[in-house]
């Protein structure tokens, strides 16, 4: 392919999480597949907004042509993004919105994500009953966005009550222990909403032989597999594609090539794959991918936005590697 002409910087602040790893791999794969990128410059570590500012400024120093960033906080990195734009760098935020007006945003709609799943769940519950609400990490902005969506759905179903609200910290072990403790209390409940830590929850219910109630999770490979294989499990996976990273690279390249999008913000709306209907089951079957790591979302590509193959994203190699 062509040698490429752009250097793209990437900044991400959560390391060691399946979703984020997929996102980074999608970025690499898309950069490779596009043939327009000479080099990726990736800052990928566990840090906070201040640390991300540091990374963004380092990328500015490295004179990249564009920066694709998954913001630690929408407002916290405004200054850095502004500096980047001033330096003539194209800035694209993925996964979450940012407040810097000059930045382009291609994002999963977190509020919609929660609303969609919760609404489906409450419908499954017959519009009444108790729900076990398993949130993400206390204090994270994605978590509070999702909380808004959840609360919105809750407001639409006045007979649905929250039996218990816990923070899983997006940690598998903690979530599982919380679920098992909750089951042990014998509190009646009719559904579980999880913020993406889902397969351990199903495991916990199966292991303790508790009656299976509807579960809503994300499209992680493990959970999607469970939705087709665990007998008696009714549930839905809401897509939250990590491949949004690839889309971010595509958007950045389009802008560099002078094809600016109509709007500053492109929202990728989540889809819901449920196993309550035949139609849903078929969708799930198509999406299921047992060869993926259970923590990886199965939606490894976004139509119109990504052009890499599955082999490319799984190989996780960028240009020049």
């Amino acid at each position, binding site marked *: 392919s062509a040698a490429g002409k752009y250097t793209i910087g990437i900044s991400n602040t959560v*390391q060691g999480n399946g979703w984020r790893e997929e996102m*980074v791999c999608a970025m690499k794969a898309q950069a490779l597949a596009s043939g327009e990128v000479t*080099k*990726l*410059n*990736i*800052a*990928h*570590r*566990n*840090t*906070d*907004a*201040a*640390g991300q*500012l*540091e*990374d963004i*400024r*380092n*990328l*500015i*120093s*490295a*004179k990249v042509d564009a920066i694709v960033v998954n913001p*630690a*906080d929408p*407002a*916290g*990195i*405004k*200054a850095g993004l502004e500096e980047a734009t001033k330096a003539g760098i194209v800035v694209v935020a993925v996964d979450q919105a940012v407040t810097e007006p000059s930045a382009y945003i291609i994002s999963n709609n977190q509020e919609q994500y929660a609303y969609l799943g919760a609404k489906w769940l409450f419908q499954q519950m017959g519009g009444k009953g108790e729900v076990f609400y398993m949130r993400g*990490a*206390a*204090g*994270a*902005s994605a*978590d*509070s966005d999702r909380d808004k969506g959840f609360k919105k759905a809750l407001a639409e179903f006045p007979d649905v009550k929250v039996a218990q609200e816990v923070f899983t910290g997006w940690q598998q072990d903690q979530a599982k222990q919380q679920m098992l403790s909750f089951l042990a209390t014998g509190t009646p409940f009719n559904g579980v909403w999880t913020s993406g830590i889902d397969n351990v929850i199903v495991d916990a219910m199966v292991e303790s032989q508790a009656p299976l109630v509807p579960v809503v999770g994300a499209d992680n490979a493990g959970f999607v597999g469970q939705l087709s294989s665990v007998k008696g499990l009714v549930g839905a996976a809401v897509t939250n594609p990590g491949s949004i990273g690839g889309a971010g690279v595509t958007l950045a390249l389009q802008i560099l090539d002078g094809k600016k999008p109509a709007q500053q913000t492109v929202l990728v709306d989540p889809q819901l794959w449920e196993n309550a209907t035949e139609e849903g089951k078929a969708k799930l079957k198509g999406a299921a991918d047992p060869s993926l790591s259970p923590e990886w979302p199965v939606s490894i590509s976004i139509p119109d936005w990504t052009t890499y193959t599955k082999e490319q994203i799984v190989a996780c190699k960028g240009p020049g590697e």
Partner: protein
Amino acid sequence: MSHLLRRQGWVLGLFALFVVLFIVTRLIQPAYGSNDFGSLVRAVLPYAFAVAAQTVVVIAGGIDLSVAAMMALTSVTAASMMAGASEEYALFVVPFVLAMGLVLGALNGLLIVVTRVPDIVVTLATLFVLQGAALLVLDAPGGAAAEWLKALISGTVPIPGLPDAIDAWLPKALLVLAVCLCIVWIPLRRSRLGLSIYAIGSSELAAFRSGVPVKRTRIIAYALSGLFAAMGGLALTMSTGIGAPIPGPYLLASVAAVVLGGVALGGGKGGLLGPIIAVFVLRLVRTDLTLLAIDPNVTAIIEGLIMVAVVMFGAFITMRGRQ
């Protein structure tokens, strides 16, 4: 001169390392200039305060695991107080938050002195308490910072009469850092109190016998640590314009930089300059790793290796010195 060399040998070595790294940076990225240096200083800011907070208690023979949580709490407090408030209100917020750090730090010290539970356990407990308090103040990142506070660390110091080319290398953030640290540290270092902090870290018994009020000094050391941590929290709010209730990676970084900076984890030895330079070195290493576009997964290995290698090297030197 030989005194200076012997005493500050480690610090001078670190400084030399920094200079070498700086040259390397220029080689990697010939365009690396004053703006980029300003970025470096701004990145250093919260780490530097965290390290200062850790240094004071380590010199006093203790350790403070609650540094990062304290920064988070003070940061969200400042950010939530300034949200929607006037610019002038921030004039009140800043001293309030600093006082809060001082008091909470003193509380740490008081708990250690009163309960006689080892410091590492007390501060581990307060880590949870402060983190919890931060979440109560703001349950998600938010708040705001006054514009003048944000401006305080961006841009350079215009010194009249100085050519712009030199002026550009004097970022405001550096001035803020130097002023904040010096205002506390220099008078402290020169005072009886400062000596007392070194004394209790060096030998509690000897300090007591020299008339040092050991308990009070320990409490003050933790209070100062709280004060520095509060400065760190403010620095976070100033640079990001928000407060985040989840602590950043400042605890481990502070311990590492303290050790790299030549402050013995047993107490009594070292100064503030070493750890601060160590922070600059560590941040510059990160810059270089980014500039070189090193595989991000390898950077963790490199950072760990640097830490272990430098500390082992230090231990090796002291062993050689003893023989």
